[in-house]
């Protein structure tokens, strides 16, 4: 599908302009990467619902809207970002506005020797080798048009590096705030995290809309975990209710590494979130837990792919969806077990709560198993609020609306309560609780 229409032309024009503007400011390898991705973007074109991977998710509104590359972020006041960032407490903060790094909004405390947490662009100077070795390696742009598009605009982003054995207790919060100011704009946030062997860290990626703007976020995050590394990842999607969000998280796990991700998706009018994890060394463990909640005409689509490439790895996927009004949801969880990945232990569960007659969920597990001696299980449920529980709550004086709200919150809380760090767990809990409150369809994410 090469005929990708005037919008693709627009992207091409924007790309040429972008390359002209930044000519000579980035390393040669990065320019080559951008060029290769740009070419691939033009070849692939945007998917239609005839593509199996996009069957239930129609990107036409994104294709038809002439999103312009976001200008350098309007200088937003610290106070505007405060509610989205201060909850993390004593942690480190990397702030981006419209995809551009904002040193004045960031809070970079002294980090231990050897640790890097900062702007990707700044890191090009001293860590070019590290970036070159990893950027574009995990998130494959060959077969994913939105990853290709993101990579074609690659210049800025967040870069986090942990040397071997480094343990960082305080979480690192990376906030991508968008503020379109009445002009439909697109940004391509990029995050690269390289965690050395036996290192430990906690990162939160947060996507927030500051106003009820129409914009498009096309994010890519790459995580590379060395042997025995332990990494806690969190993803908060609170884009504006008019926004489009497409995000790809690509993880490469070394031997005996542990990756845990908790996600909460409550914002945007359209969300397509993908997770691709490759268990590339023996004994790795990958846990993905996500809650997605949608109402009104929101569409949320979760696509996961966990690939067991080596023996004795464990993967757990636990996703819960809450869909109200005319919202639609998609959960597509794929587990791939390669031929020599024996003793694989993979489980996948997807539970959905439909709060209205009109809400729709498409849920499909996809298992591709090429090895013997593996344990792979999957299960999906779709249900309504339990009438017995509703009655029990009402019999204690709680009215129907509150009972529904409490039960909806409880449904999501079962996953959120598994978050290890108190502050992060409390924040997720609070956001879900706010979402579940009766006025959720009118309120802006904040």
């Amino acid at each position, binding site marked *: 599908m090469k005929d990708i229409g005037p919008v693709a032309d627009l992207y091409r024009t924007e790309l040429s302009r972008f390359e002209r503007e930044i000519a000579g400011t980035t390393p040669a390898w990065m320019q080559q990467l951008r060029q290769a991705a740009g070419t691939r973007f033009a070849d692939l074109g945007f998917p239609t619902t005839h593509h199996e991977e996009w069957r239930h998710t129609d990107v036409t509104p994104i294709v038809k809207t002439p999103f312009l590359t976001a200008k350098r972020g309007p200088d937003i006041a610290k106070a505007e970002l405060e509610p989205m960032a201060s909850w993390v407490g004593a942690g480190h903060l990397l702030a981006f506005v419209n995809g551009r790094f904002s040193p004045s909004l960031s809070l970079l405390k002294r980090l231990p020797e050897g640790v890097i947490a900062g702007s990707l662009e700044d890191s090009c100077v001293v860590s070019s080798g590290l970036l070159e070795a990893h950027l574009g390696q995990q998130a494959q742009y060959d077969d994913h048009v939105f990853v290709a598009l993101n990579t074609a605009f690659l210049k800025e982003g967040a870069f986090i590096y942990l040397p071997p054995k480094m343990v960082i207790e305080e979480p690192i919060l990376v906030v991508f705030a968008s503020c379109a100011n009445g002009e439909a704009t697109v940004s391509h946030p990029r995050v690269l995290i390289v965690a050395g062997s036996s290192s430990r860290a906690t990162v939160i990626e947060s996507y927030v809309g500051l106003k009820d703007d129409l914009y498009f976020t096309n994010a890519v995050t790459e995580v590379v975990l060395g042997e025995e590394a332990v990494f806690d990842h969190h993803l908060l999607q609170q884009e504006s209710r008019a926004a489009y969000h497409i995000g790809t998280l690509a993880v490469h796990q070394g031997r005996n590494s542990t990756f845990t991700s908790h996600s909460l998706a409550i914002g945007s009018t359209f969300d397509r979130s993908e997770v691709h994890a490759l268990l590339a060394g023996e004994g790795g463990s990958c846990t993905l837990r996500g809650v997605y909640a949608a109402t009104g005409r929101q569409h949320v689509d979760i696509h996961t792919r966990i690939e067991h490439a080596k023996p004795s790895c464990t993967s757990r996927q636990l996703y819960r969806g809450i869909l109200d009004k005319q919202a639609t949801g998609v959960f597509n969880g794929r587990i791939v077990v390669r031929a020599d990945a024996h003793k694989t232990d993979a489980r996948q569960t997807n539970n959905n709560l439909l709060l209205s007659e009109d809400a729709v969920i498409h849920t499909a597990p996809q298992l591709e198993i090429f090895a013997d001696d593996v344990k792979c299980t999957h299960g999906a449920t779709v249900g309504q609020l339990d*009438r*017995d*529980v509703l*009655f*029990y*709550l*009402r*019999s*204690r*004086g*709680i*009215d*129907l609306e*509150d*009972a529904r709200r*409490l*039960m909806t*919150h*409880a*449904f*999501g*809380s*079962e996953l959120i*309560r598994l978050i290890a760090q108190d502050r992060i767990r409390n924040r997720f809990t609070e956001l879900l609780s706010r979402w579940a409150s009766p006025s959720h369809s009118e309120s802006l994410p904040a």
Partner: protein
Amino acid sequence: MPDPILQISDLHVATAGKEILRGLNLTIRAGEVHAIMGPNASGKSTLAYVLAGREGYQATAGTIRYEGKDLLIMPPEARAREGLFLAFQYPIEIPGMTTLQFLKAALNTIRKHRGLEELDAIDFLALVKERAQLLDVDVDFLNRPVNAGFSGGEKKRNEILQMTFLDPKLAILDETDSGLDIDALKIVAGGVNALRRPDRAMLLITHYQRLLKFVVPDYIHILLNGRIVQSGGKELALTVEERGYGWLEGPDTRISEEKAAP
């Protein structure tokens, strides 16, 4: 004589298209403790559910007056706010909601209705600790999801704990003794007795007289085939223990095989 809290007149109730209560009459006044005894399928739980307002239990004839008001038109939450409390025979599990969250939501709703301020976190916890001690409930267990993975005894104690929180005018205890060993029964009975007050009425629904040894009622009624066939004082329980329910069955009250099945 105090005013009646509950007045049931000629109540007929059907569930799943079948008539279960067939002309029940009962009056309960403030300060009184009544017990309704009866074999399986006599309509005991149906009475509990229709009083609490569970869906699927249709009053086809008769009236229920609660403090003079028509109870049957009130939604379940309104009944609870007005002081009616049902301790469930089979307490419901609520995954994802801790007992503390549940208690706090219920307590504050009811306090708000009664014009009282919501309790803050500190006062609430202090109250929880005090009440939990009374019922020998481990405070840790209050941080677990409501009834999920609780033993039968823990579930029943949790019901009584809720009752102490919600300060009801009329407490209905549906088979609260079932599934309890003797120690748990004594604890639960102690909790119930501590709640006896001149301005509060209780209705104990039970198959056996076991509970009635520890919570001694003022009146006992025998429910058979959807009607009260005998009423008396506390000594009636002993008669039931000795003779069972068979002697009460006239041709009119005979329980069919089908209805007697559990």
